[in-house]
């Protein structure tokens, strides 16, 4: 479903992604962890080309994005992203946040987009907030709306870029519960997070990154209980 091969990315002289190879099969859940500045977010942002790799191949759903730029719009509809800072559209109501892209980008009619939008709001437990504005919601509620907004594109892939890092502790659980539910729905998921409990519960593979490299890949139990890489051991000893 997602193939990153030999991906390199520089910010100026800073080599932030070093020869990254990542392969995600359909319906697989991959959780990416690692210290800040390790390139996790940059890597996940290469999948929908919010960052353009300087070299390497990015193939999503069979389309090589480094070669066919025209297909980017299609891939961005198939791979929806949830951001750390929610990035809801503040001038739109919750429901409009969910429907604007389906209507304008995917050409759905309004009724259809609103109906499925309300269904997804119900799924994240916020149907009663449909006509509220984002600023009237708590952080946790905003992030749940952001997830519903992503889902309303009917994507094949969900990309989460530290979805709970900007939340107050008491709101993290409500967002993670939604994500766990989603993980069981059979969608392909790549999630950058510091929530180790979540990684253990839903991940098929855990990927550990540091200094722009993937240093270890494994099942949650193998990775958390018996990490092989020294950096991974250090990292885990600090946070667990």
């Amino acid at each position, binding site marked *: 479903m997602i193939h990153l091969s030999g991906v390199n990315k520089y910010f100026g002289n800073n080599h932030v992604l070093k020869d990254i190879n990542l392969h995600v099969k359909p319906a697989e859940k991959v959780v990416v962890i690692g210290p800040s500045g390790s390139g996790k977010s940059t890597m996940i942002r290469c999948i*929908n080309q919010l960052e353009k790799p300087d070299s390497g191949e990015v193939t999503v759903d069979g389309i090589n994005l480094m070669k066919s730029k025209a297909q980017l*719009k*299609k891939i961005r509809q198939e791979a929806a992203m949830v*951001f750390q*800072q929610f990035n809801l559209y503040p001038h739109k109501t919750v429901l409009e946040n969910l429907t604007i*892209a389906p209507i*304008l*980008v995917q050409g759905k009619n309004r009724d259809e987009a609103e109906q499925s939008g309300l269904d997804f709001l119900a799924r994240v437990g916020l149907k009663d907030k449909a006509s509220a504005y984002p600023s009237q919601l708590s952080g946790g509620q905003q992030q749940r709306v952001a997830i519903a907004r992503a889902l309303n594109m009917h994507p094949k892939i969900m990309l989460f870029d530290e979805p709970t890092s900007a939340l107050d502790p008491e709101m993290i659980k409500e967002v993670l519960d939604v994500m766990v539910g989603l993980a069981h729905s059979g969608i392909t998921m790549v999630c950058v997070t510091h929530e180790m409990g979540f990684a253990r519960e839903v991940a098929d593979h855990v990927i550990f990154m540091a200094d722009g490299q993937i240093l270890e890949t494994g099942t949650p139990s193998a990775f958390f209980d018996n990490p092989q890489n020294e950096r991974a051991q250090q990292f885990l000893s600090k946070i667990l």
Partner: protein
Amino acid sequence: MDVNNPFALYKWQALFDARELFIDGLTTTLEVTVGALVLSILLGIVFGIAGVFPNRVIRALNRVYVEFFQNTPLVIQVIFIYNALPHIHIVMPVLLIGIIGVGVYTGAYMAEAVRGGIMSVSKGQLEAAMSQGFNYWQAMWYIILPQTKKVMLPAMANQAINLVKNTSVLAMIAGGDLMYQADSWSGSNMYYGPAYFTAGVSYWIICFLLSKYINKLEKKAEV
């Protein structure tokens, strides 16, 4: 007769008798104002977006436009259009010169207001829109620009009000605007007092009404 009193009653009487002239001038001023305002807002949006455009050449265009028109006097720009362009066979009626001259000049300030407004919107908004498959222009139009209102409106309002007053530059090229009529009428009879007072009050009323209207828009933008 109290000829030494600049505001002597008979001078006001003369002005009242010449009111057609002043009404003509006011009409011209309003026409130039409306035309130049529309032009400056269009230029402001185009060059304002150019100022944040991903392409460096386009961004440079914004800088050249803004720096040129902000840093040379409006009077010279208008006189240039009036006196120099006819040499290359571009001859325009003064009303159009007024609209273009004042509009292009104010457009540079509008562009800065628009650019500032766009830059005040968090980068995540553009990313969110792009991640949903919007192209750059859709993201600008539907997501970014509507959020710039709160920052942009006060700055644009100031420029709109300056624009009203700046239309008086037309007096320099016999533009037939309010300032020109006041100037030429009083130049022939020396009744400067009532002429300039009336012109000044007229500009004040236009600007005051305009700023009240913009205040209303700002309140609406906050809701």
